[in-house]
């Protein structure tokens, strides 16, 4: 066990945990931030996507011991009022079906647009392919990312 001092959504948070514990379970079960989802635990579905210093990471595959004081952003902290352009685009396109994958999708999209503000179709397709949606909302996700890119530019 070790003590970890994290910065999550701009807030300092402290917890006691094993260095091997993935950030995902620290966020969910220790800090009560359940917006970040569990889907596979092996970095293959994207449901657990968070930002480390603004860049998308799979929190299920990120042990606490590997963190280096990066600013952690989860879906709960992507925007104060739920009005990040990506979130607004998701509402506009009524993207979710079951909704379970969508926090991860949104975090991936926000990171993609941070790195590639004016993405091509191919950029969107490859940038969003790490996130699985069993409900099959990809066509709406695709359209929503384009809308968000326009809003951001």
């Amino acid at each position, binding site marked *: *066990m070790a003590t970890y001092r994290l910065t999550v959504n701009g807030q300092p948070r402290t917890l006691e945990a094993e260095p091997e514990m993935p950030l995902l379970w620290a966020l969910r079960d220790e800090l009560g931030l359940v917006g970040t989802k569990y889907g596979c635990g092996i970095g293959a579905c994207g449901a657990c996507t968070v930002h480390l210093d603004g860049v998308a990471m799979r929190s299920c595959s990120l042990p606490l011991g590997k963190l280096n004081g990066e600013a952690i952003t989860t879906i709960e902290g992507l925007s104060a009022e739920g009005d990040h352009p990506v979130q607004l685009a998701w509402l506009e396109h009524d993207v979710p079906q079951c909704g379970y994958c969508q926090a991860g999708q949104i975090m991936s999209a926000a990171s993609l647009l941070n790195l590639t503000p004016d993405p091509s179709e191919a950029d969107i397709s490859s940038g969003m392919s*790490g996130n699985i949606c069993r409900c*099959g909302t990809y066509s709406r996700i695709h359209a929503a990312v384009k809308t968000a890119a326009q809003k951001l530019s």
Partner: protein
Amino acid sequence: MSTTRTNRRSFLKVSAATGGGMLLGLSWLSSCQNEQVAKAAPSLVMPEEWVTVSAFLKVGDNGVVTIMSPNPEIGQNVKTSMPMLVAEELDVDWKNVVVEQAGLDTEQYSRQLAGGSQSIRVAWEPLRKAGATARYLLVAAAAQQLDVDAGELRTENGYVYHDGSDRKLGYGELASLAATLSPPEEVTLKAAGDFKIIGHGKKNVDAKPIVTGQPLFGLDLQRDDMLYAAIVHPPAFGMKLKSVDDSAARSMPGIRDVVRINAAPEGVELQWSDVNAFPELVAVVGDNTWRVLQARKALQIEWETDSAAESTDAQRQKLQELLDNGTAEEARRDGDPEAAFARAAQVVEATYSAPFLPHNTMEPMNFFAHVTADKAELVGPIQTPEFLRTTVSRLLDLPEEQISIMMTRMGGGFGRRLYGNFGVEAALISEAAGGLPIKLVYSREDDMTQGTYRPEYLVRYRAALDEDGRLIGFHVRGTGTNESPVFANRFPAGTVDNYLAENLSSETNVSTGAWRAPRSNFIAGAEQAFLDEVAEAAGKDPIAFRLELFDRAIEDPVGEENDYDAERYAGVLKLVRDKSGWNTNDDKRGVAAYYCHNSYVAQVLELEMKNDEPHVTEVHCAVDCGIVVNPEGALNQIEGGITDGIGHALYGQLTLTDGVPDQQNYDTYRLIRHNEAPHAIHTHFVESETAPTGLGEPSLPPVIGALANAVYRQTGQRVYRQPFVQPRELRG
């Protein structure tokens, strides 16, 4: 047909400040309702007082209305579309409506179940009547208050108007009185032409909480003192638990208990929903999901053989043997099929197969349970709460009245959560751990290897054509693990004089069950691919060939029991032909049409080959589901079903080696991804005033046929075996 229950609770008035709108105070979800509602609809001002007018409805003093959504929400959007039915007849402004998920309450609601795309179809009358009944009461209250005849009043957007005296009263001012009045025996419902909410797209009522990551799902549930649990089930079908040494696991950090449970003890009667290959389990209970998942690796467990360890190759051989030589059950016979085949100028024959499919809901199975001596509280994702309650009652020997079940929003269902073994397990674990409140969480591997899989199927079709390319005989013979996929009375039954349908089924110890559009999810693709081949042999355009068959079924149907309406069937095919600009002579696209779950769907699909794999670029889809209650949600369902169907037909497959599933997570199991999915899906609804039918499933089955036919037209190769893309290395 279910009926409206108008028996109301006695007059109830509660203050929002002290927990208004929390009549289901037993649940975690509703206990933070006001907070959740505020996040879902921040622009709404919450009332100070709520009045319960009926089981479906609470009216706030400021006119804001809470509509209860009784059915489980699995992503099929009933939490939006079903309250729309109530709101329409209540005559309120949708902007002033908040929706609250109801828990299981069989006294107030009927059919609280998500399955078979039936929610909207079954609720169409009762929910509108519930809205109309409440409106009647509000009008009656206004008549008393204004001292006029109810006949002089009209309603609009949450107000009752008396035009004669130019007065109006808001529903919020009337609710207290309305709740004391007796409901009418009969109510009149609006004509379809007068709908203001039905038929007008409404966005998902949970969209805001979803995109902001608010707790909605079973997996998100947290309670003070709640612990987490993980199960260990046998590594292979055909094995069972022998002994366990838990000493190492017990001493690991955060671990509170290790228990053994049995969900199928001798002498307890189980139900259809209790499909479970592994009733005897070990469970680890602790203070963090990751810790219990770690600790279970430290368990020393001995397994023993219970029945045969089956492998996919052997199972497939067995099905093939059965198909070739087995004695079938004859499901339908018209005319003299043998004679028709004997005199045919041409016989077309083809055999199709499909593998086991796990459901792979993105939210893995989980459930919260808190079982004490005299009550059990369960919260979680379940499509069949009523059945879960019955099984839990039998296993805990606790009366049903002492068991409460709250349904959470579900991260997908697709049939998996019809079988509530995880809910049962959670209750048994809580009990065995001495009444601790626990949340059972399946890992992805647990979820994929302990499934109720879509069965393996195998079907052979034969068609007899005469010299002029007319279909004179048709024979379908199907088999599968635990069930045959054949629907004897579906198309083309009824269109051909000589017809034979046969079923055979083979048993397995692998647990199987309903998977989005059961049986149709395979047989539609097989049948529609076969008809394409038959049309080609007959020298006809595939759409024209099908329309000829429908003409026959319209003019002079064969047999009495044909499950479909041939005119509506032909209607969607013509609509998709026209909308897609189908080119009869030289179209490189694939076409298919299918009827299931009371709805009709036809598709034209375009693809290109990329690295030897089909990549679907565009789909046109025509749908006849009667009145479209919520066009916004309906489009999403259609698009999702299409993408899901394409993905599973191309890549989905679970195989077994000696009873052990070969695929256990997404490194070896391939689900369709963003770059593989079509981004242009054009949906066209048939305009209709017929009562609405389901949409959660019907767009999936035919797309597999359209895909197979498009592959043929692009490559010249017919595809008979799913998955169409054979497995390769997957990327992480």
